[in-house]
Every structure is written in structure tokens, then in C-alpha cells.
């Protein structure tokens, strides 16, 4: 895997220099795809309000905006997943109707979706080529070879015949990217492709996008990470509340300006508090726990009020440790002590009894009931505490609690009776967080708590995590985002291939040390 320094370099370098050929293409300003006066409403909710958006051939066009601004909705309309309430789509000057993704694919558009949509029980090769097999008849050898090539491009090295099942979210995301790239689409939509990727893969992807751009492909790129957007895009469109704030040349606009346009007001970063806190006795003590074949010899201690970050490359086994502690796949050996007392956690119920909470990484599959209202979801983990006699659910209380959390976390929704599946990704994550915070746990395990959340919301989540820590909770935060690990953690555990390769104290937490440990070369770095 490429070195991480390259990633920071790419960010520091800013926009990639424009070559002569590209300048020619770009200067022609051929409008490839354009959306005119697109409106979209879901019921009474106007999500897009007369959006004009145009895409020039050969450019990388970034879309940015807060959670729920309507970015995904816009792309989904252009891809034929949703039908606009009104408005037109033009492709190379002709008005087209996108009634189904099949139309968009036929017009040479490919899309990488925000939520991975993979075929778990099918092989990787099939996952890559579904939707654009070359012929009616399938030659598997050819296909496997091509699949290997496509995986190579995104830095994966699985056997193409391997089933998709068991790959991590990030790996799935990479397969989806490989799939979009292997189709010979002219236009590629990327909806937060990097949300669950680690820095190395992000860098790899950015390099790949650059190659694509050189090949003349046109790309729409959604991300909440401004560095990436500054590094890769030609033009940037900012969306706010379903309206276009403006489209800017990358060189014309600074990060701070972008943020300001996104949220419509001055942005103050929470900053990093460098005060050295002291903590009391360790509250959660994990000693030498293992699940053979998954992870081994993991030990750590967290005191009340302490935040332990857990870093590592994808597939390092961080999620598995969390699942082990939470009793989903109980640990096979080792000890877990809470407040000095040894506990055996064989099931999630036992974990919850011991006041542990886990906000899972896969919010749709494991965190939420997408077809149910916000209220149902928010209170589900504490449902036992809002019953009256005979187990009767106190719906008033349920509503009140949910509304409190919607307000507290600034979740964007119509009411607490809205279906969670209808919320934007970021807002779904907030509901998932609310569900677990409401259990008032002593120990809170967060697995990728800010996956797919916009800058503003992220700050809120950070503030929330800090506040929870101040309230005296033990927090274990698994994250692939280096920034948040560095800025939030009081200590950091780093994992590599199921082993614990580092435990960094407060004053040791730096990007470089974390990354070295994540590659199991901490000693070399020192």
C-alpha cells in the first residue's frame, strides 16, 4: 500500500496542475449534462427547490453541502432512481428522461452510491460486472481476470471468485468503486466514496480519479472532506437546503469560504483542547481478550471521562473487538472488568445490563429499523423503561424523549413520526447515536460515529462526545478519520491485522505515530 505521506502531500499541493490537453477540453466548456429547474418533494418536504446544475465534459465537479442539503437526491434524480417533481434533464443538448437507472446506464452514466449496495452472496467478480456484462453469455475466466485488474486499480487483492460476504464496509465501497470504473461510462457519480475509507485508500482513489480525468471522463464528486475536494475538483457547487448557493472554480474559493457558504454563517471550529486531564481509576479494564482467528491479545483500560480512540486500517479488527466486548461474538479468552468487578458478557443483553452501549458502523443493517419512525428507533434500546403497567408502552413519553434528542442533536426531520429510511445519511446516523445515548451508558463504544456526517454536524457530534466524557462515561471511539482520533482522544489504541500494535498516551498522539502503528512499524518510526 502506498505511503501515507503522499496523502498529506496531495492535500498540501492543492489543485492538480492543469495540463494542456485538459485545458483544451475544459476551455471548450462543452456542457455534457445539465439539470434545469429541478424540483423534488417527498410529500410536503421540498428537498430540491429549482436546482440548476451543469456538468462540463472532462471536469471533476464537487458537490458539497450539509447533511440533508439534497446532494444525494440530485444525483439520484440524474441517475433515474427518483423522478423529479418538475424540471428537465439535458444530455449533450437533448432533453432526456431518466425513468429507471437502466436509462442512465444506457446514456453512459455510472454511480457509486452513498450506502454500499452489494450482492453479499455473489462473487466479487460478479459484483463488479453486474449491470455491464459485455455479452449475453458470460465467460467467467475473462471476467475474473478483468475483475482482478479492476481490483488492483483500487488497491484490493482478493480472489475474484471470493464471495462478497464478510468484506468490511470499506472493502465493499472499494468494490463498488471498481465496478463503476470498470464500466465504460462517460460520466461517473461518486456519492461520498471516501466516507468509510482510510487515508491510504483515499489517496489511492484520488490518484485514480486523476487518471480518469486524464482519460477524459467526467466526474461528480460528493464528500464532506474539504481537503479532498480542494485537492481534486475543478469546480465546486455548494448546495444549501435544496438550493444552489453557487458554483465556483476551485482556485477562486478557500475552504473557509466554502464552509461559510454551506452553513450560511460564520463557522467556528471547536478546536482542540490541549489541556492534560488526569483520570481516576480505570473503569473498564480489558485484559488479553482474544477470539482466535479474528483478533488476539487485546488489552486496554479506560477511566471514567476518558476517550480512547481506536485507529487502524480497514479490516484491522476494530469492529470485531467492539463486537466481542458487546457480546455479539463473545470473547473466547481473557478478562473484562467493569469498576473492578469481573464480568462475563455473553450477549448484547448482558452488555446492556452492564451499561455498555455500541453504536454500530452499519447503521442501516444493525443500527436502525429503517422502515419505522424516528420515535420507534430512538427509544427502542430503552423501551423497557418507558412502559407502564402490563408492559403498556407510554407513547407520550416515547414521543417526548425522541423529540428531545431530535432537538439536542439538531436532526433534520419533519417530525418524530417520520420514517428513518427517509432521512439523509447523516441524519440517520444522528438517530442511531440518539438511540444509544438515551440508554445513559457507563461505557459507550462508537464505531465510526461520524461516517457520512457533514462538517457542522461532525462538530456537534464531537461536542456531544466530549460532553458525554465530561459526564463521566468511558468512551471507546473507533474511527478511520485521523483528524477526529487525534483531536478527540485522550489515548489511542492502534490495531493491525487483529493485533494490538500500539497504545499511545495523550502526548504521543500524532498523525505519524498512529499511521506507523497502523502499519505495524511503530518501532521503526521511533
Amino acid at each position: 500500500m502506498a505511503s501515507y505521506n503522499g496523502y498529506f502531500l496531495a492535500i498540501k499541493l492543492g489543485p492538480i496542475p492543469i495540463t494542456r490537453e485538459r485545458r483544451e477540453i475544459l476551455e471548450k466548456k462543452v456542457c455534457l449534462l445539465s439539470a434545469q429547474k429541478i424540483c423534488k418533494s417527498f410529500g410536503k418536504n421540498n428537498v430540491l427547490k429549482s436546482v440548476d446544475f451543469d456538468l462540463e465534459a472532462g471536469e471533476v465537479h464537487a458537490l458539497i453541502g450539509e447533511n440533508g442539503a439534497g446532494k444525494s437526491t440530485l444525483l439520484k434524480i440524474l441517475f433515474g432512481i427518483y423522478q423529479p417533481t418538475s424540471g428537465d434533464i439535458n444530455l449533450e443538448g437533448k432533453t432526456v428522461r431518466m425513468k429507471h437507472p437502466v436509462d442512465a446506464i444506457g446514456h453512459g452514466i455510472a454511480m457509486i452510491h452513498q450506502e454500499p449496495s452489494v450482492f453479499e452472496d455473489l462473487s466479487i467478480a460478479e459484483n463488479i460486472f453486474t449491470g455491464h456484462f459485455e455479452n449475453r453469455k458470460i465467460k467467467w475466466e475473462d471476467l475474473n481476470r478483468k475483475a482482478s485488474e479492476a481490483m488492483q486499480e483500487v488497491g484490493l487483492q482478493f480472489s475474484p471468485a471470493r464471495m462478497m460476504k464478510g468484506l468490511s464496509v470499506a472493502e465493499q465501497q472499494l468494490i463498488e468503486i471498481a465496478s463503476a470504473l470498470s464500466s465504460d461510462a462517460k460520466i461517473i457519480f461518486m456519492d461520498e466514496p471516501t466516507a468509510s475509507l482510510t487515508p491510504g485508500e483515499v489517496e489511492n482513489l484520488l490518484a485514480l480519479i486523476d487518471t480518469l480525468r486524464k482519460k477524459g471522463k467526467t466526474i461528480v464528486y460528493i464528500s464532506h472532506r474539504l481537503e479532498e475536494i480542494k485537492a481534486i475538483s475543478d469546480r465546486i457547487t455548494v448546495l444549501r437546503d435544496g438550493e444552489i448557493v453557487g458554483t465556483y472554480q476551485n482556485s477562486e474559493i478557500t475552504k473557509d469560504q466554502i464552509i461559510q457558504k454551506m452553513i450560511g454563517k460564520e463557522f467556528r471550529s471547536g478546536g482542540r483542547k490541549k489541556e492534560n486531564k488526569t483520570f481516576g481509576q480505570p473503569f473498564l479494564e480489558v485484559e488479553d481478550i482474544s477470539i482466535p482467528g479474528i483478533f488476539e491479545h487485546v488489552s486496554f483500560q479506560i477511566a471514567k471521562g476518558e476517550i480512547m480512540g481506536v485507529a487502524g486500517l480497514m479490516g484491522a479488527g476494530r469492529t470485531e473487538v467492539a463486537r466481542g466486548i458487546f457480546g455479539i461474538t463473545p470473547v473466547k479468552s481473557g478478562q473484562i472488568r467493569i469498576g473492578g468487578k469481573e464480568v462475563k458478557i455473553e450477549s448484547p443483553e448482558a452488555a446492556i445490563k452492564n451499561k455498555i452501549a455500541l453504536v454500530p458502523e452499519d447503521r442501516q443493517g444493525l443500527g436502525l429499523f429503517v422502515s419505522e419512525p424516528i420515535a420507534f428507533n430512538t427509544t427502542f434500546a430503552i423501551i423497557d423503561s418507558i412502559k407502564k403497567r402490563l408492559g403498556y408502552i407510554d407513547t407520550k413519553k416515547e414521543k417526548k424523549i425522541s423529540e428531545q434528542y431530535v432537538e439536542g442533536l439538531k436532526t433534520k426531520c419533519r417530525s418524530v413520526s417520520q420514517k428513518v429510511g427517509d432521512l439523509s445519511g447523516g441524519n440517520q446516523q444522528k438517530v442511531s447515536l440518539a438511540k444509544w445515548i438515551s440508554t445513559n451508558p457507563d461505557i459507550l463504544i462508537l464505531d465510526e460515529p461520524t461516517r457520512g456526517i457533514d462538517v457542522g454536524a461532525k462538530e456537534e457530534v464531537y461536542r456531544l462526545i466530549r460532553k458525554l466524557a465530561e459526564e463521566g462515561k468511558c468512551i471507546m471511539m473507533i474511527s478511520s478519520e485521523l483528524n477526529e482520533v487525534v483531536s478527540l482522544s485522550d489515548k489511542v489504541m492502534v490495531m493491525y491485522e487483529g493485533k494490538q500494535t500500539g497504545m499511545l498516551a495523550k502526548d504521543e498522539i500524532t498523525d505519524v505515530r498512529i499511521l506507523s502503528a497502523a502499519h505495524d512499524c511503530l518501532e521503526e518510526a521511533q
Partner: protein
Amino acid sequence: MKHKLKINRIIRPELTVFVFMILSLVVGILLSPNFLDIRFLLGSTIFYCELGLMAIPFTLLLTSGEIDLSIAANMSLVACLVAVLYQAGMSMPVLIVIGIAVGTLLGFFNGLLVTVTKLPSLVITIGIMSVYQGFSQVLVGDAAISGFPEWFIGLDQYTILGLIPLNLIILIVVALIFSFLLKKTVWGRKVTAIGLNRGTALYSGVAVEKTKVLLFTIQGTFCAIAGIMTMSRLQMAKYTIAGDGQMDVITMVLLGGTAFAGGRGSVLGTLAAFFIIVFIRTGMRLALLSNYSQMAILGLLLIVVIIISNGLEKMAKKYE
């Protein structure tokens, strides 16, 4: 605003079932002049009460995403066992308790098998169906065992106000209790949650396996009760006593608006579907419609009711 909210409240999947219930009553009246005889009509329910009684817990089971095809077999096994033991000289009241215990145990066993092997319950219970059916055949052979004590025979003939059969009362009371459990209580919500998304339910600390075993066990209890009620009504026990009852139960539950894949269920819907089946069948029988026409009409009804209730649901969404 308020007005529209109300429309939303009213248009629910169950509504169609209730409308069809009334419709089937009207059809019945049109089909035969002898149909509208309340006493007869209520009396006709007793052939289906046992099935209805099994359909109530079945609604919950299906809501949690599981299915039990062995219910009718369980029912006849309990009946045969009770009958054989009665012949051997045990006393009936004791046997009723034993019978219910055995049925419960059989249900518990199903639940255990399904949760331990983690195989689809549809498949496990297809096999179990043969096993239970086979055991009752082994127990009684082809004999029909009768000669039960006087008080035990014809429990279905007791009526309230000389009009409503006891069985029907039991069914309605049980349905109301289970409806409350499913819709209003924490436990019911957990059952629904398991059917909606097993993973999320597990991560939220729901004892998924235990709940499922419990549901199978309750199902077993009701199979046993149904078995004993049937014995009392027919005054005999035989291994074919329950026939293919599971198909009628499934039809009832689905007609009532419970989702086959789990996650949505309505006990009152099942109850209404029970009445639809009673009315339609009774009406068609009085009209001397051939049984296959009856089958075809019931099949059509199942599809039409669900098409319409889906349509209504969509309409309700629009009003939102």
C-alpha cells in the same frame, strides 16, 4: 390538517379486511335466504374456532419472521395422546392439563430446533409436521377413540345468552389479549422488531432467540388447546382430526394483513379474516356452490383484499 390526520388513522391495512368482512356478510345473505339466522351463523363459527385460535399466536409468530407448519400435526398429536391415555384409564381433567403441557412442550421443541440450528423454520417444520403426524398415527393407528366423559363432550355447545358459542367467546377474548400484547406492549414491539430487522434487534439487546422460542411455545400451547377443543366437539380423536389445518390458518393470517416476511402483523385483522372465511364458506355452502368454486373464490378474495389494502395504504401515504 387535523382532518387529514384522521383519514390516515382510518385507512389502515386492517380496514380492507373489515370492509370485506361486512361485504362477505352481505354476499352470504344474497346467496341464501337461510343465511341470515344469527344463531346459525354464530353456530357455524365453531368449526373454525379451533383454527382461529391457532391463527392468533400464529400472527405473532409470523410477525417475528418465523412460521410453523406443524401446528395441525401438533394439534392432532395432542388429541390422540389425550385420547389414548384416557382409554388407559386416566382422568380427563388431569389429561387436559397433560395435553396442554405436551403441546406446549412440542412447540418449545420446535422453537429450540429452529433457533439452535438456525435453519429456516419453513423447512424444519415441514419435517416436524410429518414427525408429529406420524406419531399420532403410531399412537392410535386408525382407530377413532371416543367415549369421553359426559361433561367433556360438546363443550362447544355451551353458549352465552343461548346465542354466542363458548368457543367463539374464547377466540375473541384471546384475540383481544394478543392484539393488545402485539400492538401496545414492549414485548409486542420487540416481536415486531425481530421481524423487521433481526440484526438491529439483536444489537439493541433484544433476546432474539429466547423470544422466538417463547413464540413457538405459545403456539404449541394453543395447538394443544385447539386439539382438545376439537376432540370435545367431535366426541372422538383420530390422527386425521386436524387435516390440513395449517393451510387455513396461514390463509387467515395473511388475509388479515400480516406480512409473510415479518415485521408487520395485526391480530384484529386475523380475527376479521376468520369471520370472512366463516361467512363466505357458510354462504357458499348454503348456496350449494361446489367446493372448488369455493376454493377459487377464496383464492381470489385473498389476492383482491391484499391488492386493495395495498392501494389504500398508498392513498393514505399521499394524504400525509
